[in-house]
């Protein structure tokens, strides 16, 4: 499973990354989930995302412009 966090490095993006890491850990997915930060604007735009941070799971945009809670991310990962 590939998880991407899109954002140019604002505080909210860091928070979302943190939440994603926690969600992955608590589901015990450490081994088969990899989290990648996408910080290049041109790469972010390819996903059609205009508000950051955004969460992408396996190529699908799951949320834009908000910091999901750990629980919400868990729900998306299951």
């Amino acid at each position, binding site marked *: 499973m590939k998880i991407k966090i899109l954002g140019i490095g604002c505080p909210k993006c860091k928070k979302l990354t943190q939440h994603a890491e926690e969600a992955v850990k608590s589901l015990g997915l450490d081994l088969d989930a990899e989290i990648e930060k996408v910080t290049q*604007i041109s790469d972010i*735009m*390819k996903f*059609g995302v205009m508000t950051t941070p955004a969460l992408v799971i396996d190529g699908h*945009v*799951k949320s834009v412009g908000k910091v999901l809670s750990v629980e919400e991310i868990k729900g998306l990962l299951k």
Partner: protein
Amino acid sequence: MNKKQNFLLSSITVITIWWLIYRSLAPIAAWFTYTLLGMNHGSHLAAAVEFFVYEAPKVLMLLILVVFVVGIVRSFFTPERTRRILSGKREFTGNVLAALLGIVTPFCSCSAVPLFIGFVTTGVPLGVTISFLVSSPMVNEVALVLLFGLFGWKVAAIYLVTGVVIAIVSGWVIGRLRMEKHVDDWVYLTQTGNAALEEELDWPARIRLGLDAVKDIVGRVWIYVLIGIGIGAGIHGYVPQNFMASIMGKSWWSVPLAVLIGVPMYSNAAGIIPIVQALLGKGAALGTVLAFMMAVIGLSLPEAIILRKVLKPKLLAVFFGVVALGIMLVGYLFNLIM
């Protein structure tokens, strides 16, 4: 009783309780000051205490209500929807729509660049995009509530209307100047994908978003609001000194000076209110102070640095110049009529 009726009933109950408390704030403040604390009528300290005990809960209650309502309204306007509305719109109509949508579309300043690219690469004209980017920070709901609470509805209304007008005109002027070639070249080459993410929210979800906005915004700004009202209370009833009147008064050069001082400063709308209160208390003119406030929250160096990624220096300079000019006109207008 079904869910919908239940929901309606509890909303009405909450609003009624809010209204009842709001209405009784003035007598409670008077009772607190003169009966409970036993202070003397007519003393400066008593007037200051009464002012604070009345204004602080009043402004906070207004803030909670407005931020909550704006949060719900914003749940209807995603940036994606706004872009679809604005795409291919003609000048002027587009500028007016963009300025209005800028108020209700949620985005934080760190999203300014992706929004800009997302807009201009999918058929939203440059000038219309600029109108959107100007109105969003310029017309700020927190500033609006504070102006309403502390200076009355007329000042708040003029702030709202002039903010929207500045956004419309700045975008329109930049559109007329045909400055598309001053957008950095890579912007138009960017491939903008299509995020097929359209969430349909139900009402409980929208209310949750409204509550989140209250928690986030009011949680961040309440301390500045209290400091601002505290300063207001401190100077309440005292004759304003003319200390600031000489440099932030109604002279023709005080408005441009206020804007020049304001642009390099960066603060959120609530953080600036204590300063506004203090300046007014020291005899500064309202128009001059308002121009200063708009320059601080509408134009800032961090914003310039962010926008420099997509705008060439010339367009960035025109952008700041046009908006600063608009703010100065608002300052002069206020000084003239107040």
